[in-house]
C-alpha cells in the first residue's frame, strides 16, 4: 500500500512539473512579461528597462527554475495586475472556490445518486426515462446560460435567492446548482449502469437464491458494490470543479479562484495565470490520487 501510494505520488509529482514546465514556457514565449509589468501607458524605453530590471532578458530555463524554486520556498511571485503576491491572492480566493466546489458536488450527489438508483431499479420505466432526459439535458445546457436563466427566474421574477456575491452560504445555492448540474450526467449514468450491472451480477443472483429481495437486497448486497466506483468519480469531479468554477464564479460574481483566473487571463497577468494552472492541476492530481487511495482502501479486491 505504502509503495503504491509512493509510486502514484511520484508520478503525480512528475505530471505536475510537466504541466508547470509547459505552461511556463508557453506563457513566457508567447507573451511579453515586461510589457505586462510596465502597463499600457508605458514607453518603449521603460519596457526595456523593466526587462533588464526584472531579469526577463535571461534565458527562459533559468527563469523557470527560479520560479520553481520560488514555489518550493512559498514565493509564488507577484501579480502585475493585482499588485500583490500571488500566494496571498490564492489564500484570499481559495475559500470561496472550495465552498462552491463542495456545495456543487453535494448538489450533484443529492440529485444524481437517488435518480441513478431509482432509474437502475426500474429500468425503462418513467423514472428511468426521466433520469435519462435529465442527464441528456444537463449535458446540453451551457453553464453560463443556465446561470443567467436561474438568475432571471429565482432572483428577479421570484426574488428567493441573492443575485450575486459570496457573503453567506445562501449566496452559493444558485451557483452550486449551476456548477453541480454539469456533473449530474456522468455521476447519474455511472450510478445507473453500475447498479444495473451489479443487480444483474452472479452474486446478486446468489443473494436472491438465498431469499433476499426488494429494498433489502439493494441495500445489503448491491449498493456497496455500485457506490465504490462512484466515490472515485465524485472525487475526480470535485477536482474538476476547481478549474470549472471559472464561468460560474464570473456569472455570479463569486470572488474565487475561477474568477481570479478569468480576470488574470484578460489582464494578461502571467504570474497569476501560471500559478493558477499549476494549482488547478495539482488539485486535480491530488483528488485523483485520493480517489485511487480511497478506492484501494474501500475495495477489498484492490487492497494489498
Amino acid at each position, binding site marked *: 500500500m505504502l509503495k503504491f501510494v509512493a509510486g502514484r505520488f511520484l*508520478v503525480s509529482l*512528475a*505530471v*505536475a512539473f*510537466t*504541466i508547470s514546465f*509547459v*505552461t511556463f514556457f*508557453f*506563457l513566457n514565449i*508567447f*507573451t511579453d512579461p515586461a510589457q505586462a509589468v510596465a502597463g499600457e501607458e508605458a514607453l518603449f524605453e521603460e519596457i526595456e528597462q523593466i526587462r533588464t530590471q526584472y531579469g526577463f532578458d535571461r534565458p527562459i530555463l533559468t527563469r523557470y527554475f527560479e520560479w520553481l524554486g520560488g514555489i518550493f520556498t512559498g514565493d509564488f511571485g507577484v501579480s502585475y495586475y493585482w499588485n500583490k503576491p500571488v500566494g496571498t491572492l490564492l489564500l484570499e480566493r481559495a475559500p470561496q472556490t472550495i465552498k462552491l466546489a463542495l456545495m456543487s458536488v453535494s448538489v450533484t450527489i443529492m440529485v444524481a445518486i437517488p435518480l441513478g438508483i431509482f432509474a437502475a431499479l426500474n429500468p425503462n420505466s418513467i423514472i428511468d426515462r426521466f433520469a*435519462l432526459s435529465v442527464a*441528456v*439535458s444537463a*449535458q*446540453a*445546457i*451551457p*453553464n*453560463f*446560460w443556465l446561470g*443567467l*436563466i436561474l*438568475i*432571471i427566474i429565482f432572483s*428577479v421574477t421570484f426574488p428567493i435567492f441573492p443575485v450575486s456575491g459570496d457573503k453567506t452560504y445562501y449566496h452559493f445555492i444558485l451557483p452550486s446548482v449551476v456548477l453541480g448540474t454539469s456533473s449530474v450526467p456522468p455521476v447519474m449514468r455511472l450510478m445507473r449502469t453500475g447498479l444495473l450491472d451489479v443487480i444483474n451480477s452472479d452474486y446478486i443472483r446468489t443473494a436472491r437464491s438465498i431469499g433476499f429481495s426488494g429494498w433489502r437486497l439493494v441495500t445489503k448486497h448491491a449498493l456497496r458494490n455500485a457506490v465504490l466506483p462512484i466515490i472515485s468519480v465524485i472525487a475526480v469531479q470535485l477536482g474538476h470543479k*476547481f*478549474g*470549472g468554477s*471559472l*464561468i460560474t464564479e*464570473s456569472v455570479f460574481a463569486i470572488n474565487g479562484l475561477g474568477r481570479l*483566473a*478569468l480576470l488574470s*487571463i*484578460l489582464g*494578461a497577468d502571467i504570474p497569476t*495565470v501560471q500559478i*493558477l*494552472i499549476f494549482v*488547478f*492541476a495539482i488539485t*486535480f*492530481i491530488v483528488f*485523483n490520487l485520493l480517489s485511487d487511495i480511497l478506492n484501494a482502501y474501500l475495495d477489498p479486491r484492490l487492497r494489498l
Partner: protein
Amino acid sequence: MILKYIFRHTNPDFLNRDLEKLTPKDIMFRKAIYHSGFKFGLLLLSTITFIGVFVPFFVDMSPYDQDISKRLLPPVWSEGGSWKYIFGTDGNGRDYLARIIYGTRVSLTIGIGAATVGMLIGVTLGVIAGYFGGIVDQVVSYILTCQLALPGILFLLTIISIVGSSLTVVILVIGVLHWTLFLVVTRAATQRIRNLDYITAADAIGARKTNIIFTDILPNVLNQIIVIFTLEVGVAILAEATISFLGLGIQPPTPSWGVLIAEGKEAIFFQPWLIILPGIALFLLVISINMLGDGLRDITDPNTSIE
C-alpha cells in the same frame, strides 16, 4: 436506392427474420429503427442542419446587414414585433433569426472541425499505444495523465487570449484539448482487440502491422470512435459557446451563438429573447447531437438487445 434499402429494412417480414441470419449492419439498422432517442436525435439534428445549412441558400436573409434605426425590435410574438423580423433584431439592427440560423453553421463547423482534430490526435495515439503497448503505451499514458490534469477551460482561454482568436485557432485549440476520450476508448478497444484470436490469426497469415491496424483494428474501433466523435462535437460546440461568451472566441460580426448570448447578456431583463433564443438553439443542437451519440452507442454496442 436509399429508399429501397430503407423499405427493405423496415419491411415486417425482414424484421422478423431470425437474428442469426442478419448481418451486423442489419442488426444495427434494426436497433436504430427501434431506438426512439436515436430517431429523435437524428430527426432534430437533420432539421437543424437543414435549416442552418440549406435554408440560407433559398431564403433571402443576411445575418450581417445592419439598420441601426431598427435596433432591438422584439420578436413577432411580443408586443411591437413584426413578421419582417420574426425573432426581432439585435443591438445593431440585424435580423436575429438570420443570425441564429447562420450561427448553426458556425457551431457545426467548429464542432465537427474540433472533434476531427481531437479524433486524429486521440485515435492515432490510442491505436499506437494500444497496439504496441510497453514503453509506447506508458509514454502515451503519461501524456494522457498530463492532459487530464490540465485545467481545460482555463488553459483554453489562456491560449486563445495569447494567440488571438480566429475560427481556425478556436477549432485547433479546442480540438487539441479534447482528444482524451478518443485516446482512452481507442486504446482500450485496441488492447482488447489486440489479444483476440483473429489478430493472432492475421499475424499468422503474415499480415503486416499496418495492414492489421487498418484491416482488423480500426474497423472494429470505428463504431466507438463515431460515438465519441458525435459526443465530442457537442462538447466542442459548448466549449466554443463558452469562450465566445467570455469574449475570447469567434470574432464579430460572425454570428456564433455564444457571441449572441454574450452580446445579449446585458439586456437579460429587457430583451431576454436575445439570450433565450440562441440558448435554445444551442441546447437543441447539442441535445440532438448527444441523443444521436447516445443512440449510436446503444446501437453499435453488441451487448444491447433490439428493443
